[in-house]
């Protein structure tokens, strides 16, 4: 095996990972608040000092360096549910996790528990702008609406405000499954900056056409790469045969 086979192998492994990411995007095409992932590729240079010519001293491998999520907004899907909210613009809802930490999500399918607490569809409390959970008194159930600045409006005035947290470094926001993201150092938007839309949800921002073309590209690159490996293999076989004849 010379170096070219290893280069091709690194390419093929990266392509397989890329397809895994595409498959996950496709699988989540109907997931509310889902943000598509995009793998980031890097050239990884290895210096081979023992190469014969100077040009061949640098070998570049492919490295799938990481994944960033696409922050484009998904489409607004009207549901008519007063407790369904979509964020207009960047940011995440903050959710209290069972271990006391905070998770972030863009899926605004909220409901009220029998205690009157505002929770996500997984039953995790939604944090208000002071970090506290929001509770609606039982006699006001069915009469609350969510205003555009995130305030929960009861018949006698606001009962709390849903926090929208933004991150300067979106790349540090990493998906954890269940629609939740983990992130650090967020900033809660003030009421004047918060823009929510109640009565609907944000669809996933996966564009099936884009993913399909990506997939075709991955498939063809993979096949090309394998054919090249085949050709290299052929060459090596012929070289061995030739050398055998010269030696004989």
């Amino acid at each position, binding site marked *: 095996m010379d170096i070219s086979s290893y280069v091709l192998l690194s390419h093929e492994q990266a392509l397989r990972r890329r397809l895994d990411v595409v498959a996950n995007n496709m699988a989540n095409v109907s997931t509310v608040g889902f943000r598509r992932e995009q793998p*980031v590729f890097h050239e990884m240079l290895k210096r081979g000092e023992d190469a014969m010519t100077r040009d061949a001293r640098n070998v570049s491998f492919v490295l799938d360096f990481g994944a960033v999520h696409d922050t484009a907004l998904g489409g607004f899907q009207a549901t008519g549910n007063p407790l369904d909210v979509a964020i207009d613009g960047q940011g995440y809802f903050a959710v209290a996790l069972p271990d006391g930490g905070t998770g972030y999500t863009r899926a605004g399918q909220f409901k009220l*528990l029998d*205690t009157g607490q505002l929770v996500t569809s997984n039953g995790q409390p939604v944090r208000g702008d002071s970090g506290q959970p929001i509770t609606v008194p039982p006699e006001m159930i069915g009469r609350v609406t969510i205003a555009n600045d995130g305030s929960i409006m009861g018949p006698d005035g606001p009962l709390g405000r849903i926090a929208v947290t933004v991150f300067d470094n979106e*790349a540090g926001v990493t998906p954890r*499954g269940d629609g939740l993201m983990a992130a650090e150092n967020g900033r809660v938007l003030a009421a004047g900056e918060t823009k929510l839309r109640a009565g609907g949800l944000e669809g996933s921002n996966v564009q099936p056409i884009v993913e399909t073309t990506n997939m075709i590209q991955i498939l063809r690159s993979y096949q090309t790469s394998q054919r090249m490996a085949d050709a290299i293999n052929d060459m090596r076989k012929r070289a061995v045969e030739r050398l055998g004849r010269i030696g004989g």
Partner: protein
Amino acid sequence: MRSLSISATGMLAQQTNVDVISNNIANMNTTAYKKQRAEFQDLLYQQVARPGAATGGPQARAPSGIQIGAGVRTGGVYRISEQGAMTTTDNQYDVAIEGNGYFQILMPSGEIAYTRAGSFQLSDQGELVTADGYAVQPGVTIPPQATDVSISRTGIVQIKVAGQAEMQDVGQLQLATFVNEAGLEAQGGNLFLATAASGQPNIASPGDPGFGMLRQGFLEASNVNPVAEITALISAQRAYEMNSRVVKTVDEMLATSSQLR
């Protein structure tokens, strides 16, 4: 190839989606039916550690790892309790609820079930019962000599008896509301049962704060919007096809690998 199982979860999710949509379409003409929506969530992400990934200098954008999602799962199927349209029937025992609340129905098992389908009839005893013959709670009995029955917006049931000018009160219908309506468990037959998730019912007369009003001679239609359901059905079908395309692609890639000499 992880992609195979990832796209399988995608196909399964869309199957559930189509099941829910077809149930909505099937119940388009069911009195007071509330449409349902399947809700999806992404599965756990596998953190593939990348040794050497951080050697590329200070990277501002890329995180130091790659996360590969494992697909999608159905997080739940939830009911959208939008008000359905009022359809007039002119039947004096048809009562629609405008706003929040459920009628309470006494089941043969002694449990109380809840419904918004107010297409009532009279039993042989003159009791107000549902189409299945279950009595409404609190019970209302219409005496045989009644010539006319009126149910007010606030649930007062009055009858007119021949030879008497005054209407007589014979009962008061009440409504139950729940803190978390989505937590009610559907029983079929338009009936729901209270669960730990829905909480205990709050019972009051129609028209009290937070409770809906009644309308005699009307029924609440289902809140299924056929156009919305058909578009949802089309996108579910397409999403299913997309995921099956991924399966095909993986298959071709594996075929390429296996044809190597």
